């Protein structure tokens, strides 16, 4: 197992280098606003643009720029500096990470608990009114765009612009250490919105897996041995049905840690997703590269964690 983990980690590093290279190449080769021109303003002379290009290091050969960038990351964990604010990308990301972690893990807990619970109940009561009702609702939630759902939630429940004025509205987020109570209440609506779609997907997935699992021979054997139906479902059915959930949970968390742009924007939560979005609109390459790299890192790590967890959850899986 240890060798397997080490091998996966090394592959992870290789993947990170590849992602860095791809990001670097894509944003420099594809047609886009040139940062020096954007920064120079519309009346800038070629002399001014050349000076800015030189200042930002954009006049160096691409390969040299890439080498300097990679050297900075892997030797000094230096992700560079914003072209606009001159702030360190590392500090900008660190500054935003708390909000993104809070948003992601809180929402994950909600969608996991609710999605799994609903999925199990629907799977066990297949064809019932409850099953049809919950799966219909799930379909609606899967179809609803997060952005729209966020707006509706604010218009209904936000304390400032909502009809019912229950939860703090957009822009109310504060850090956990600043005011734990306000941190929690300000995240309730974003958590619910972010969790809604995922919970619906998870519920449908686990329902399907559970139905399949309950038809397996070992379930029949368990019943023949006289185990209670609750024990059969939870110990044998769910344990098997949960595996696909683990796979997508790792991916979902990894992706969201890279930034939940829409939810962060609607609820005005200063997370990594919005940082990335702003950087893209300004062609602020160092921030784009930094946030993409962080997102890739989260996805790779989450995948490794999921693969390792598999081995513990499913007795049939053993890595060598």
């Amino acid at each position, binding site marked *: 197992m240890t060798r397997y983990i080490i091998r996966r980690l090394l592959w992870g590093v290789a993947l990170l280098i590849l992602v860095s290279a791809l990001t670097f190449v894509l944003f420099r080769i594809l*047609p*886009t*606003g*040139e940062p020096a*021109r*954007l*920064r*120079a*303003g*519309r*009346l*800038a*002379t*070629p*002399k*001014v*643009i050349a*000076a*800015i290009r*030189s*200042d*930002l290091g954009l006049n160096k050969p691409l390969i040299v720029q890439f080498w300097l960038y990679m050297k900075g990351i892997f030797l000094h964990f230096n992700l560079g500096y*914003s*072209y*606009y*604010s*001159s*702030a360190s990308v590392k*500090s*900008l990301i660190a*500054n*935003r990470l708390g909000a993104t972690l809070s948003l992601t893990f809180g929402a994950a807990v909600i969608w996991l608990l609710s999605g799994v619970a609903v999925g199990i109940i629907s799977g066990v009561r297949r064809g019932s009114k409850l099953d049809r009702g919950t799966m219909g609702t799930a379909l609606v939630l899967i179809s609803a765009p997060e952005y729209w759902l966020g*707006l509706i939630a*604010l218009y209904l429940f936000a304390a*400032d*612009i909502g009809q019912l004025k229950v939860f703090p*509205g*957009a*822009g109310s987020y504060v850090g956990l250490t600043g005011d734990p109570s306000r941190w929690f209440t300000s995240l309730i609506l974003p958590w619910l919105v972010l969790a809604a779609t995922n919970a619906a997907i998870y519920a449908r997935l686990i329902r399907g897996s559970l139905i399949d699992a309950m038809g397996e021979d070992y379930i029949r054997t368990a019943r023949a041995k006289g185990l209670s139906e609750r024990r059969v479902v939870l110990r044998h059915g769910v344990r098997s049905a949960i595996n696909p959930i683990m796979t997508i949970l790792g991916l979902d968390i990894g992706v969201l840690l890279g930034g939940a742009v829409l939810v962060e*924007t*609607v609820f*005005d939560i*200063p997370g990594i997703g*919005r*940082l990335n979005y*702003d950087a893209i*609109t*300004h*062609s602020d390459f160092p921030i784009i590269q930094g946030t993409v790299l962080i997102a890739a890192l989260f996805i790779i790590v989450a995948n490794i964690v999921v693969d390792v967890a598999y081995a513990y959850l499913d007795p049939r899986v053993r890595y060598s």
Partner: protein
Amino acid sequence: MIRTARAGVTVAFVGALALALALVLGACGSSSSSSVSSSGLKTPKTESPTAGKRGGTLTVLNHGDFENLDPGVAYFLNDYEMVYATQRPLFSYEPNTFSKQTPDMASGPAEISADGKTVTVHIRHGVHFSPPVNREVTSADVAYAFDRGANPNVANPYIQSYFSSVEGAEKASGGPIPGITTPDRYTIVFHLTEPKGQLVADALALPLSAPVPEEYAKKYDAKKPSEYGNYQVATGPYMLKADSEGKVLGIGYQPGKSATLVRNPNWSPSADFRPAYLDEIDIKIGGDTNVIGRQVLEGSHEVQNDTPAASIVQLAYEKFRSQLQISPGAGDHYIAVNNKKGPFSNVDVRKAFWAGLDRTAMNKARGGSLVTDVQTHFLYPEIPGFEDAGGLVGPKVDYNEHPEGDMAIAEKYMKLAGYPSGKYTGTNTLEIVGSTGDPAPEDAEIANNTLRSLGFKTKLSLVDHSVMYAKYCGVPAEEIDVCPNVAWGADFGDGQTVLDPTFNGKSIIPSGNNNWGQVNDPTINAAMEKAELILGSEARAKAWAAIDRELVAEAVAIPYDWDKTPSVESKDVAGVGDLWNSGAWDYSFTSLK
């Protein structure tokens, strides 16, 4: 100065403005009539800048972040509201005008020598920098502001455009500029190689002329790029919250999150024309425009200082009309056509296109008459010379008299151009490059349909707004025939800043070109050369108005939209918008009720 002026034609501006304006049509102009009563709406001209109540904290909810807060670099709308509250350029504008400058750091009007080659400015006594510098501002600080503007680490966007006639400015790279002298602590003199004194004097309203203390800023200006913006000191009534070392980054400004303006303890009201009613301005950055606009309208002591979403403008117009401000003079949109090569090198083909284009439909796409006027010439409202150039109605030429388009007149000009059927019969396929992001595609499609009606074969491509300029319309070698989504705005209140960069043949450069139609008419070029040297604001206004009429006579481009900008405020805010800055709320004049 409007936002497009400093921002140029940025993705952020055009995207936000377009988005905001596109659906206002639904609220107030989607029917057959585009004339919407704007009674009951505030404009920067109707707001009282001097009747405010002192004290309180204003919360600003902005979607977009600042671009650059260094006065030597700043050129965006949001940046300007921050910079003009914290810095004092030699001259600036009172909120309700874009034609008359007010001495700011200067103690009186600029003195221009009779030969137009020397500009002398006396500066106020008793103005002090904010902590940690604290000392009195001298003319040497203004001179250093220009010196650093030419430093590649700062790279001011305007120093080569409007101050290139200052002796030594063209070759300056951060050291003292020989043509700027300071004979005493309170006098600065600009020595010019050409008689462009009026232009230089007018351009002193740009933030570049705000004083910067050399002994403090030099170490930050040595960084590539300069970090002075993150350690800046103020001369205006407000300053970005800072630590004892003057550091702003992470304290008074958190990129993408917030900024906090507090009173500058060294500011003296007796030496300023700004009332500065507010105690503090808290700026929150990044909210969704559909949400923050509603928060402002329904909330308390809040404004939004970037363009509201279309749904918010609609809501404000219908239910919160007293909280909606519409500011005219926010730039223009027009269709650039290739004057150098292809069918549009023929003036009659250009006139045919102008005549046939349904400009009212294009304006409806942008939001109708609440937020646009049909453009009839190139100087826009509030720019000196606008009325002389024809006002809203515009020059009385047949191809300009039917905003809804008149195909009979269009065909007349096609016949004059050598197409007897009134339709184009050549083999060229027109290359049209427009912009993505509503409502630009709709405008581009209307232009495309007009051209097809005139018999042209066309190929329409829509690309990202910045790509449209950077890779196509701003690169003459690409030989694009039609760019239907270009926009422009003035850098300061002078017709030259509207017409010269966009229609002077001398402005054509291989990339980053703003003369998108490659207009290069020797007569017009000569008129511009002459007008550039005229002294006196009124005479300049008349000269540039005359040039505007020539541009219309030559139909060098096809105008369609003069922009007006909507802004929203809470019911208990006495907002004062800046006419010179697209109506953006002025922090130094706005107060709480």
